[in-house]
């Protein structure tokens, strides 16, 4: 009886001791799960990122671009051993298909996966704003590309790798002043928040500062497809310029109808017309200018190198969405290097640290306002077949 009792005590002690030993070994030997989950202050050998992109749906052109840019960045980071010898970054991508419910569900799954240490969030503002509170609650550093509306960058764990359009639209106003385009009409999609804010809030003071008179503002809706009336109105008024704040398909139609109405002045658009989206407009879009955060026409070394790498991999020139995805991944990588910690908390700290310093990316000298990226911006001219730097 006594021996049985001693035996049970020894067995219990051995069990407890074994469990303690396994826990200690598991904590120390598996560097990736321990250092990523518990903020162990180390860079793991395998760093897994997540991405919820709109790869299908109405903004797929933005999601696919960001995905491709991210791939280039990850390849460079791994090939150059930027985070250390043998450290590999990988990315798990899912398609949110422009659905808020799917974006929320996929983000929740990713955040529940402890192996994923940072996420590239959805590009559509509605989805981004829906998942931002979840990101803050779960404390998973998430970098959004595009998603320019308010309610996206709301705390310590939400970051944005796309400068809001109004932060570089001053380039358009300055260019117009330099070209002597002192009066303009704005045609804008009033149901698209970025354009509505640009037309109503941001551009008027910029115009005033640059001596530009806004003689008329013509609002249209997202489902407006025929612009004959507004085009003729503008042709009759004949301002020196027209600021076109419309989505891609609308701007193709509008530019054609504007030229058909006999207007020969300068059209100034936005980065939405980039990525070749204006090509179907043909001759009507020749000479169109627009400010953008990135163009393959840029001549600085980082932009040139990125464009070359992109073309080699995808057999086409990169668009601004690709550059945003590329710089966002590099922001995360620099954050990991800065903090020396590839855990979620480490990446969050590192992102903030890098944001405080800024860095040189494909989009130029990147600075930050809080967690929000800022770019120098560049004025582009569409010559009918390709982007060139505006004079």
């Amino acid at each position: 009886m006594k021996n049985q009792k001693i035996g049970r005590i020894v067995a219990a002690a051995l069990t407890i001791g074994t469990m303690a030993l396994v826990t200690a070994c598991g904590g120390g030997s598996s560097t990736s799960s321990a250092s990523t989950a518990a903020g162990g202050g180390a860079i793991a050998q395998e760093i897994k990122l997540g991405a919820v992109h709109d790869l299908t749906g109405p903004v797929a052109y933005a999601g696919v671009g960001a995905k491709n840019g991210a791939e280039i960045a990850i390849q460079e980071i791994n090939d150059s051993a930027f985070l250390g010898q043998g450290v590999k970054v990988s990315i798990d991508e899912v398609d949110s298909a422009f659905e808020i419910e799917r974006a929320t569900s996929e983000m929740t799954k990713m955040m529940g996966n402890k192996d994923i240490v940072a996420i590239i969030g959805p590009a559509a503002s509605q989805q981004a704003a829906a998942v931002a509170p979840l990101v803050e609650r779960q404390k998973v550093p998430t970098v959004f590309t595009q998603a320019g509306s308010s309610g996206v960058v709301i705390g310590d764990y939400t970051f944005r790798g796309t400068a809001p359009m109004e932060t570089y639209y001053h380039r358009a106003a300055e260019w117009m002043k330099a070209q002597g385009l002192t009066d303009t009409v704005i045609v804008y999609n009033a149901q698209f928040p970025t354009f509505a804010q640009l037309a109503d809030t941001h551009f008027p003071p910029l115009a005033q500062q640059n001596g530009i008179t806004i003689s008329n503002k013509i609002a249209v809706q997202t489902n407006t497809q025929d612009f004959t009336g507004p085009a003729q109105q503008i042709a009759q008024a004949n301002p020196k310029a027209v600021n076109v704040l419309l989505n891609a398909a609308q701007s193709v139609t509008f530019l054609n109808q504007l030229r058909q109405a006999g207007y020969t002045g300068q059209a100034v658009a936005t980065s939405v017309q980039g990525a070749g989206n204006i090509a179907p407009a043909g001759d009507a879009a020749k000479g169109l200018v627009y400010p953008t955060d990135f163009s393959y026409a840029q001549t600085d070394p980082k932009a040139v190198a990125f464009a070359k790498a992109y073309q080699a991999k995808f057999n086409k020139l990169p668009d601004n969405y690709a550059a945003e995805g590329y710089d966002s991944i590099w922001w995360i990588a620099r954050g990991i290097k800065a903090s020396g910690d590839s855990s979620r908390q480490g990446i969050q700290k590192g992102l903030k640290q890098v944001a405080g310093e800024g860095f040189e990316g494909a989009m130029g000298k990147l600075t930050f306002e809080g967690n929000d990226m800022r770019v120098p911006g560049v004025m582009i001219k569409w010559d009918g077949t390709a982007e060139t730097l505006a004079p």
Partner: protein
Amino acid sequence: MQDVLNAAQLGSVYLLFALGMALAWGTIGILNFAHGATFMFSAFVAHLVSQAFALPLPLALLISVLTGALISVATQVFAFQPIIHRSRNITTAETRILIGGIGVASIPLAIAQRMTHSAPFGINTTYQDVVWDLGLFRLSSTSLIVLIAGIGLGLGIIFWLRRSKQGLALRAIGVDSETAAGMGINQFFLSIGTMAVAGGLAGLAGALLTIQLRAIAPETGDQLIIKAFAIIVLGGLGSMTGAFIGSFILATVETLVLKANLGSWVDAVSFGLIFIVLLLRPQGILGRKEVRRT
């Protein structure tokens, strides 16, 4: 004068799109919510072919018309007919057809979105648009084609429905399908034929509008569906003349609202007016008054 022309042109755009939907709904009772996707995908097929070589205008239109007819016939045979056979009564069938149409529409939409990444697409054509400055107004050759096509086809279909035997048979199906079947009208073949024509009209509208607008997005068809629905209801269900008139009324209201620089109010004003008309005249402008037998 220019505003009148602009309204007429816009009305022709809406009429071209709504004609096919009005024909199917007003005669064989099929409210086809896949009409927008048919319109878009027909143009998309023409776009794909035109990537290989620039299409002459008639060929672009033919490809689009045939694609539209094929899609609509396939939808009728594989989706709507089975729904009708499996439904207990007409009301149940109509609801299911509505849902079925939305479901069918998502397939060509997804294909086009996937292949274009939702970027706008046009049709590469040898046709060159010409603009005439006639002093009082400016008119492009494409707008003229759309005007002639819209008004010509609209009047042609109205005339055909009223004067031809097949038109009479279709109208009979629209009034009472069971009695019509009892009188020897082959509903199945007439339905297929009607859907083929409706789909062909959607395809024609798709190609013409894509060329006129220079580009459309995969979502363009969905945006036009609601307007077509409103036009048919405003004009009166079952009345092609009503749909004809409704198209131009809606276009005129929209043109005037845009001219008044109230562009963001276009839908609110247009649909608000439709609502008021329906309050005063629930059957629409030229629709049949509902008769309930006691």
